[in-house]
């Protein structure tokens, strides 16, 4: 095969708007290639301009169709859009049919739209990182809005949704477990509720259920999440969803919350990078010594305990040196 293009060259090309380079950079991010760090450092100064909207919810709620229609609405305002669509992989083969794109193919003839499908792969917590870096790539390419679609189950999906400025939670009526899914920790991160398939007889019941759940919250919210009804497949309600999204953005900007959230996110990112390095450069190598293996055997035989051994790797505060 052809030799790999140097990272710096790829970054230059993607910053100049080359889609091929962008696609390849995202692959390197997904493959966790060794040059990801230098790529991301090259890209970072050009980011911070895109508004990131997370679209999440249970399977079958109609997220991809909502995204497809939202692209149409946002494109009408002239903004360029990047889309990251995350789909689960088969737990059996590791393979995946990344199907979200099918609903959005009509936008493939529009150069103002860049759609990237992402499998959850085996990434152990790396999925959120890969998705976040992909958002940064699209941001650096000048896409003004980035939509991130994830299935709202599982920790890493929640983490991805957490990287968005505005999170829209899509549910459908008549699924029975729709509201159950909301209760499982995702309620708190939703800035907008979308009841899709709102032509269903149970739609108003679902709206009422969500309203009830919101009323039961103990801590008052500065922003009360609106509930938007859509019938995405018939293009209904999407303008309203986009208006609500922009209102949420205005709220974030006016209250200073946008800056605050983004700052906290960057702090978390710095810690995550440092944590990764600590693990790879200090913690993991420390288990490879013979001394450690002997200590481990002593722990197994209950002659010492895990805390005492951990003290040797990272001293407890106040204990002084090793």
């Amino acid at each position: 095969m052809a030799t790999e293009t140097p990272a710096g060259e790829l970054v230059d090309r993607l910053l100049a708007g080359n889609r091929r380079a962008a696609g390849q950079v995202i692959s390197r991010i997904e493959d966790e290639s060794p040059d990801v760090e230098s790529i991301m450092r090259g890209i970072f100064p050009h980011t911070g301009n895109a508004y990131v909207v997370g679209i999440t919810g249970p399977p079958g709620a109609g997220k991809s169709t909502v995204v497809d229609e939202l692209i149409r609405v946002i494109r009408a305002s002239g903004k360029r859009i990047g889309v990251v669509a995350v789909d689960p992989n088969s737990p059996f083969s590791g393979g995946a049919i990344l199907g979200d794109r099918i609903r959005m193919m009509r936008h493939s003839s529009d150069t103002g739209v860049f759609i990237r499908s992402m499998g959850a792969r085996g990434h152990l917590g790396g999925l959120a990182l890969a998705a976040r870096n992909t958002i940064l790539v699209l941001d650096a390419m000048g896409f003004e809005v980035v939509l991130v679609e994830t299935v709202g189950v599982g920790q890493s999906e929640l983490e991805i949704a957490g990287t968005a400025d505005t999170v829209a939670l899509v549910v459908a009526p008549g699924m029975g477990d729709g509201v159950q899914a909301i209760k499982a920790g995702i309620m708190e991160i939703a800035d907008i509720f979308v009841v899709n398939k709102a032509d269903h007889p149970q739609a108003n019941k679902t709206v009422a259920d969500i309203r009830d759940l919101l009323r039961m919250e103990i801590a008052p919210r500065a922003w009360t999440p609106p509930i938007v009804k859509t019938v995405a497949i018939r293009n209904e309600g999407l303008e309203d969803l986009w208006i609500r999204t922009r209102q949420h953005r205005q709220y974030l900007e006016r209250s200073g919350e946008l800056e605050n959230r983004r700052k906290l996110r960057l702090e978390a990112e710095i810690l995550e990078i440092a944590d990764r390095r600590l693990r790879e450069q200090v913690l993991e190598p420390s288990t490879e010594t013979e001394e450690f293996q002997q200590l481990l055997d002593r722990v197994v035989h209950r002659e010492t305990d895990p805390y005492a051994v951990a003290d040797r790797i990272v001293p407890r505060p106040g204990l002084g040196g090793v």
Partner: protein
Amino acid sequence: MAQQGRYRILMAKAGLDGHDRGVKVVSRALRDAGMEVIYTGLHQTPEQVVRAAIDEDVDAVGLSLLSGAHMTIFPRILDLLRQEGGGDILLFGGGTIPEDDVLTLKQMGVAELFTPGASTVDIVDWVRAHVGRPTEASAGR
């Protein structure tokens, strides 16, 4: 830790062809072989197929054609891939394609064509043997 590079394949239907049972069967077989498969759905233009291939940075495009338009659509996709800097993305295909046309298309640069009777095992094996990226991506470590 480096993630093992994974095969990414775009499975496509282009033009007026409305038969997608075959392409779905092959997509499923590739998925079961551990690959990431992106399916375009029916009635795509060559431009849409190539845009998807570039943005998704796939290793190969598998085009299914049962409409008889293979002598138009395969060369068009090859051209567009080259124009977009994706000349290294393999194009393979399947469908009801006469032997003479198979030879001509292969001379033009279509990597392989599977005609009725080809087994999914053969297709999966061919993709594994001819798509080189995954080993290359992990060789960097």
